[in-house]
């Protein structure tokens, strides 16, 4: 399997840019793991963090094709160790009186918290880099995860 690479793009913050980028990505057949968009310190510019399943010439193609778009101001591949990345996870997990304490312990170990709690389930909220969240999910699987959502990666150079 190809390694995952993180591409950070600065794009014009206007109508239709997301459609252009997602259209290009699907038309060229690139495999995207996640894509996040939000505004930056400059309200006319948005930052997109795109995690792609590609390497070598194929990865270069993704970057070059993105760079061709008039609305894309900058394309940068973030290299391992040179950036911070985070995502947020929310997971609803079945819980009862007996298992809740165990789930609390797991959450604490991952710096996560219980965002919601009922008689039958808890919602765990965690922020962290992708690997840490993957480990958290593994541990939660021992209990029953009924719903899971992750934001996808946001990243910033160190």
């Amino acid at each position, binding site marked *: 399997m190809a390694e995952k690479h993180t591409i950070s793009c600065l794009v*014009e913050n206007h109508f*239709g840019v997301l*459609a252009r980028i997602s259209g290009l990505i699907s038309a060229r057949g690139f495999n995207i793991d996640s894509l996040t968009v939000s505004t930056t310190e400059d309200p006319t510019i948005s930052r997109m963090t795109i995690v792609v399943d590609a390497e070598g010439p194929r990865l*270069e*193609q993704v970057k*070059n094709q993105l760079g*061709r*778009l008039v*609305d894309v*101001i900058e394309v940068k591949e973030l290299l391992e160790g040179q950036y911070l990345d985070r995502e947020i996870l929310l997971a609803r997990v079945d819980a009862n009186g007996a298992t809740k304490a165990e789930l609390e312990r797991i959450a604490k170990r991952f710096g996560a918290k219980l965002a919601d709690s009922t008689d039958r389930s808890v919602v765990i909220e965690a922020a962290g880099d992708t690997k840490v969240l993957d480990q958290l999910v593994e541990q939660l699987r021992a209990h029953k995860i009924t719903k899971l959502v992750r934001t996808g990666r946001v990243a910033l150079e160190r």
Partner: protein
Amino acid sequence: MPQKLKGAQILIECLLREGVDTAFGIPGGVNLPTFDALYQSTIKVVLTAHEQGASHMADGYARATGKVGVCLATSGPGATNLVTGIATAYMDSIPIVAITGQVRTSVIGNDAFQEVDTIGITRPITKHSYLVRDAKDIARVVREAFYIARSGRPGPVLIDLPVDATLGEVEFDYPEQVNLRGYRVRTTPQIQPEAIRRAAEAITQSKQPVIYAGAGVIYSGATAELFELAHVLKAPVTTSLLGLGAYPETDALSLGMLGMHGFEYTNLAVAECDLLIGIGARFDDRVTGKADEFAKKAKKIHIDVDPASINKTVIVDFPIVGDVKQALRELLKQVKALDTKAWLSSIAEMKRARPLTYKEKSRLLPQYIIQQISEATNGQAIVVTGVGQHQMWAAQYYQFSRPRSLITSGGLGTMGFGLPATIGAQFGCPEAVVWDIDGDGSFQMTSQELATASKHKLPIKIAIMNNEFHGMVRQWQDQFYGSRYASSVLNPVDFVKLADAYGCAGFRVEKKDDVRPTIDKAMQITDRPTIIDFLVEKKEDCWPMIAPGKPHFQMIGTFEMLSKEGGVPQIRKADADESKLSLG
């Protein structure tokens, strides 16, 4: 204080400032303000029969002149009819600006009458596009659109204009500068000296170089630099289909076209070379055949303005990203003559042993007709084609010697491109002799544009290779589908009568002896279009050929194969004489 103008008037003011003299299109509900403003301007508006014709005419105009072509259509069906022409221009990197009407902004998204998401539909086939919601943005957008269309790797740009934006009155303030922070055109300072140096070093070590030139050489105006490089290195030059004309085929170093229907010796030279210098060409699959077998023995240099073209289909050793002309100038400073004497001799031997051939048959042959057109026009006409066998024969048998003399849909392969592109080219170059070499199938996809050509009394010449087949489809069915002619047989059409219906001159030719006199007669007609209906051999095949996905050295329909069939092979007269090679 700047004066107040309507959006449509601002549009026209901006078109004039971009040097637009001709626009092709059809009016409709929501672009009437634009047509009304055009009516009152000096811009010549060519009403077409169909919007597809308008987009191909803008394309043909752009290819013939190097200027930006302009086409106009109304919303909905007008815009969707432009799509094929826009996609054609996109695939071949042709600068056109398409201006579409759109329903008023307050009803966009409501499925209004003749509403379609034009921006959405054209997003993957434009270099860029704009939906202009306010008259105040029109001037900036038009300025940017033309700049984007013609700079860098050229391409089509679409401007979608809601009717209220064209009616709104604002102060006209023409932007002198284009400010696009996301659009960086590759020019000299960005060409890395290191890349040039490494490429020059690779050239120095080559004994068997081949230059592979594409349309980028023509678009960047670098034909003189290409010629100089070839002659400094004494390296033979092959061109892609769209690169024909970038290098004179009359020159001894010319190898003509490579690829699927390229010459046998050319493809063999590419298979044997130790260095391939790709210049402004994109290693299209019709050129490479099986990509990982393409020029397998060669180190590869690739000069291209578009970084996304590098390593897309074929991995190259020495990429140079930048304008072709600038890059060649830099390269020329660092290279000197190579000893290619042995290489050129072996190529000359390949040319002698495996010339381009066809076999004489009882009926008229398209190859002969195209050679005759080539001779009658002294290789100086603008040749436009449809898509199919006739297109490949035109590429093989017309002798191209100058840039912008072949106008053909290479990337998209759009049948029906011929006639409207011919019209566009003739509008762009009124003095030129413009021939449409077409097939009966291709021609009938847009033949209604005869009305446009006739109205403007254009002296275009249309040579129809009439074989009552979709000939290339028929050939593939014979080769790969057990001769089951699924939907490739066409109904016979009397094109002389069709010519008459549209007020064009029309001739029918059935005999070899009548070919040249009829071509000469057509050349004398200058006050209307001429159609020559050539009734040709129905099942003539286009050879040689690399079957799809096969390597270059496995061609079919070769000289050897044709010779075994008996009869006398007709050798292409125009092949450069190897005795003229300067082997010094």
